[in-house]
């Protein structure tokens, strides 16, 4: 659902009227990610590189500061878990605590 908003992001001293949205391009024009096939291809490339990285990890001799840095897949697991935790905590703990209506301070 699109709610029409007042244009509040006009900057003083800049005449924005002719810079704002104008339909100069045909909306029906096809772009690279409009084709679901291309999105799928991108995802396949991405997932295969993730797998490839995991395999490569076995062959790289690591020299970290801490013993766990040498465990196979430590960085992969850490990155994944960290981001999942980050999103879960933000969404289910932080957002309910701090979310307010946009005009809260008005």
């Amino acid at each position, binding site marked *: 659902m699109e709610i029409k908003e007042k244009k509040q992001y006009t900057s003083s001293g800049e005449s924005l009227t002719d810079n704002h949205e104008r339909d100069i391009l045909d909306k029906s024009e096809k772009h690279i990610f409009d084709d679901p096939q291309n999105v799928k291809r991108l995802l396949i490339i991405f997932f295969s590189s993730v797998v490839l990285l995991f395999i490569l990890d076995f062959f790289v001799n690591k020299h970290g500061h801490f013993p766990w840095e040498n465990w196979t897949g430590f960085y992969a697991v850490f*990155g994944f878990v960290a981001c999942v935790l980050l999103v879960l905590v*933000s969404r289910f703990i932080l957002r309910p605590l701090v979310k307010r209506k946009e005009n809260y301070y008005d």
Partner: protein
Amino acid sequence: MTNSCFPPAFIFILGAFLIPFLSGRIRSIYVIFLPVVGFCNLISIDVGTMMSVHFMNYNLTLVRVDRLSLAFGYIFHIISFITVIYILHVKKNLEYVAGFIYAGAALGVIFAGDLFTFFVFWETLTIGSVMLIWARGTKESTSAGFRYLMIHATGGLLLLAGIVMMVTKSGSINFGFIGLTDTASWFIFIGMGINCAWPFLHTWLTDAYPEATIGGTVFLSAFTTKTAIYALARAFPGTELLIWIGVAMAAFPIFYAVIENDLRRVLAYSLVNQVGFMVVGIGIGSELAINGAVAHAFNDILFKGLLFMSMGAVMYRTGKINATDLGGLYKSMPFTAIFCIVGAASISAFPLFSGFVSKSMVMSAAGDKNMVFVWLVLLFASAGVFHHAGIKIPFFAFFGHDAGHRVKEAPPHMLIAMGLAAFLCIFNGTFYKPLYSILPYPAIYEPYTLSHVMTQTELLFYSALAFTLLLLSGIYPAEMRAINIDFDWFYRKPLNSFELIVAKILNGLNEFIDKIIVKKFTGSVNKFAVEPVANLTYFVLYPVLENMNLKDNQADKTNEQTNQQIIASAFRSGTSPSGIYAACAVLFIVFLYIFI
């Protein structure tokens, strides 16, 4: 080596005052050349220069050029040059003038060799920056500007208090290593910390930066926090407390950034997060850590500026900045999208991009000191920053769901500015030697080891995997038209109510006192002073007055007043017959004679 030079700050600040006299193309050429002239001046000054002037019994060191200040000096000139190209579309003079005063003040701070000069430029920094916020001209920017000013004024006063205490105690105004030892140093420490956006003191940044003008935010992202980083690196390197402050700064803003809708506010949170890395570096205090903090400040100015520029270009063309209103812009703004991705890759520390060669120095320094917890939090923050600044910003603005904006690509001058910043981000990341050569200490760090490249790529790809899977599964928090309250809530809500309550109490008290003292008490005193005398006179002179019939002397014959009332009123207005005055005077003398 000579000890006299032209202070770099003066080129910008004096140059700023000429801007209002120029217009059009001449002004554009002038503002582009100003940073170039400044840079030429800077490289002509020898390292080790100490330029002093005598002022009121003190020797002020206006310019001290050493390797620490010089590194900041270079990047401040570079980013001024880039930003001023970026804002060439702006018609009003205010942004140019404020921008150059602000940048000049930042140069003044980093080259100041004494606490007095340091403080003066530190305060000028606040003035320049608040003008960039107010230049936006919206209701939100006005009030955010006032809150910004309030906090920085408080910070400035704390700093001043600390400086005064320190100078009184030691008698020296030299600005060098201070260290957390006495009360004075604590005041200075916290004063600097406010500009550095420490946790709970950070809200001026996330509150005000997204409210500034399109170009103003780019200026702002470069100077205030980085001068604070410089000041801390100068005065408090190796202070352990800074490690913990930095760790908190690196960690908590990423949670906010994930749920924030305003994309420039997302960047403001990630700015706090990146400054956290630098603060940790200063807290560790080893040569590698300080090098890392300075290198990261240098790179952060470029990639954060680039990200703010790309979001500014989006805002300039679409008039929108909330993630809920954007998406699919790669179709109409492909170059801006590419530059944004370069900035995103740099802040995420992808190999070959600038963050990779600087952030890892701080982490490595933490590892060298065997700080397990610090290292783990920084690693978490590295994954997190990729998540919100590296993926979220480009994804929601340029890809994701198509919001239907069909706009023109950013104007050429913006593309040139973004292109320059993007070039430097890649250059610093790929050919890191020039950057390492300007750091305060000899850099023997080698970022491109197979192990480092591999582990960092793995970390980032698996963070991206988490993002992709969460997005596809619908768990990723949808952007919402909402704001998220932060620590500024305390001074925007309860403090506001507190102010209203206090105003009510104090105004009530004022009215009450006014009623009692002004209206009642003075009247009574007056009455007390007049009436007893009149009555006394009346009683003493009773026989005389009764026979005299004062009413005859009154203009108003119909007045039914008694003699007593007439005397009282005559005393009040000071119009008694002279005989009665004389009688009073005699009475008074008799009174004195009897009792004294």
